[in-house]
């Protein structure tokens, strides 16, 4: 038994150090205010302090950190996207993730599993070949495999999918991984806190003070904070924050639901995705199957879950794995996904001076946490977005230069 553990057993008071200080009242002003204490906001705060020396930063979270979409996703990290811009961006994120446990000194249970996107139709196979070629071109390890290789990698899979949707092949993506998502938020929070960033939980932004087209401050339930730079990293709340500065965006909110089964002994090594059956599934380190599906089909600003979703998802899971018929679903939940028309994020500067946007993360936000934090920190520090996120700028819509990721960003389209 390590000595550290003995200390916990013998001490009358909890001997552990808090991950971050529990600040209550914000100061009168900060150099940068970050709205949203999820992975993205905390990562941006961490890199602002670490790489740009900007430590007079407040992170405002209206609930608790990591309680939004950071803690509601299905924890998949991958970079097998469709556009070269997207593949480069997500590949940079995967590379940071690979060394992140060490950098943050926290075990994120980052586990590289290999990721199979199953194709049940000829048109899906065409998209897989397309993605494989784009990935290879950018230097990402993805290639198309046939049914034999899939059956070998996952012998439990019914290759005919109950005879309804026989598997013709798959896009295999070697770096595909899962990680402990709340750990990512907590690790970045601890890192940012130790560098001087102040984190405020239960602190809601009620308005943003814009004077002469420039950000002047933020109104919160804990008083007014003067600042010239505000980053909005609030996922499903983006339209409400943008309304405060009079900014119109293409973002609409749809719930995205997920669920887990009771724990089982480890049997599913890989991450499996089926676009046609609207399923993605992996087995967590606790043994639960973590499952997700496509977006709810209409706009709702709520994290309610529905029976329709579980019925639809489990029916397709049974097409793939008939032996799971006695396994119970033990939890289900939803997150509010901020969807864009081209399935790419909205990042960078906006027409309001000092108001920076990290949004449009729809169903693809968790995997981008480290790189979005890094690039948004650079954007704020230099007031100029790096080339890596140029294709994700808000003005791409008025320029008619969309970044079409629909074929690779989520399932069921």
């Amino acid at each position, binding site marked *: 038994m390590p000595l550290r553990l003995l200390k916990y057993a013998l001490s009358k008071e909890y001997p552990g150090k808090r991950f971050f200080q529990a600040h209550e009242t914000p100061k009168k002003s900060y150099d940068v205010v970050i709205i949203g204490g999820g992975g993205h906001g905390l990562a941006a705060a961490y890199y602002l302090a670490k790489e740009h020396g900007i430590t007079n930063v407040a992170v405002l979270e209206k609930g608790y950190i990591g309680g939004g979409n950071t803690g509601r996703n299905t924890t998949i990290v991958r970079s097998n996207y469709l556009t070269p811009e997207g593949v480069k961006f997500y590949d940079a994120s995967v590379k940071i993730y690979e060394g992140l446990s060490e950098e943050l000194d926290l075990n994120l249970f980052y586990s590289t599993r290999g990721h199979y996107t199953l194709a049940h139709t000829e048109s899906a196979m065409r998209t897989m070949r397309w993605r494989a070629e784009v990935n290879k071109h950018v230097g990402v390890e993805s290639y198309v495999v046939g049914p034999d290789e899939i059956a070998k990698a996952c012998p439990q899979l019914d290759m005919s999918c109950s005879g309804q949707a026989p598997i013709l092949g798959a896009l295999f993506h070697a770096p595909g991984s899962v990680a402990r998502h709340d750990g990512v938020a907590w690790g970045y929070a601890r890192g940012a806190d130790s560098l001087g960033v102040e984190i405020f939980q239960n602190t809601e932004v009620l308005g943003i003070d814009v004077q002469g087209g420039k950000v002047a401050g933020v109104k919160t339930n804990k008083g007014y904070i003067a600042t010239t730079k505000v980053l909005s990293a609030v996922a499903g709340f983006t*339209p409400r924050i943008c309304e405060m500065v009079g900014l*119109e965006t*293409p973002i609409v909110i749809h719930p995205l639901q997920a669920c887990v089964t009771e724990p089982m002994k480890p049997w599913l090594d890989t991450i499996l995705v089926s676009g046609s059956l609207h399923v993605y599934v992996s087995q967590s380190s606790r043994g639960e199957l973590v499952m997700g599906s496509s977006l709810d089909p209409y*706009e709702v*600003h709520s994290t309610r879950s529905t029976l329709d979703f579980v019925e639809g998802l489990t029916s397709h899971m049974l097409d793939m794995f008939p032996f799971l018929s006695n396994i119970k679903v033990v939890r289900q939940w939803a997150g509010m996904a901020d969807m864009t028309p081209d399935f790419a994020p909205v990042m960078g500067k906006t027409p309001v001076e000092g108001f920076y946007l990290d949004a449009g993360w729809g169903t693809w936000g968790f995997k981008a946490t480290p790189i979005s934090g890094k690039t948004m920190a650079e954007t704020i520090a230099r007031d100029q977005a790096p080339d890596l996120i140029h294709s994700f700028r808000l003005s791409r819509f*008025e320029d008619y230069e969309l970044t079409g990721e629909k074929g690779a960003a989520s399932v069921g389209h």
Partner: protein
Amino acid sequence: MKLLTCPVNGTRPLSEFVFGGELRQPPAADCSDQVWAHYVHNRNGAPGLKQEWWYHAPSGTWFIAERNTLTDQVIRTYLKGQESQA
């Protein structure tokens, strides 16, 4: 099972319906490219009571639903142009 009322066919399961987006007024045909880009891409994404297009697929009926997108409550449904009779 969630239900929605089609103004022609009455109350039906939600699975028979398709969401068509918010009711919006297109700009004049000779508007600037910027105005047109705004119409094509931007949406009123904030929550609230909205007028939306919905489609009853089995009967091919397009109609308007007034729905609160925060609570997902449908206030009323009617055929376009027949709002006063709803």
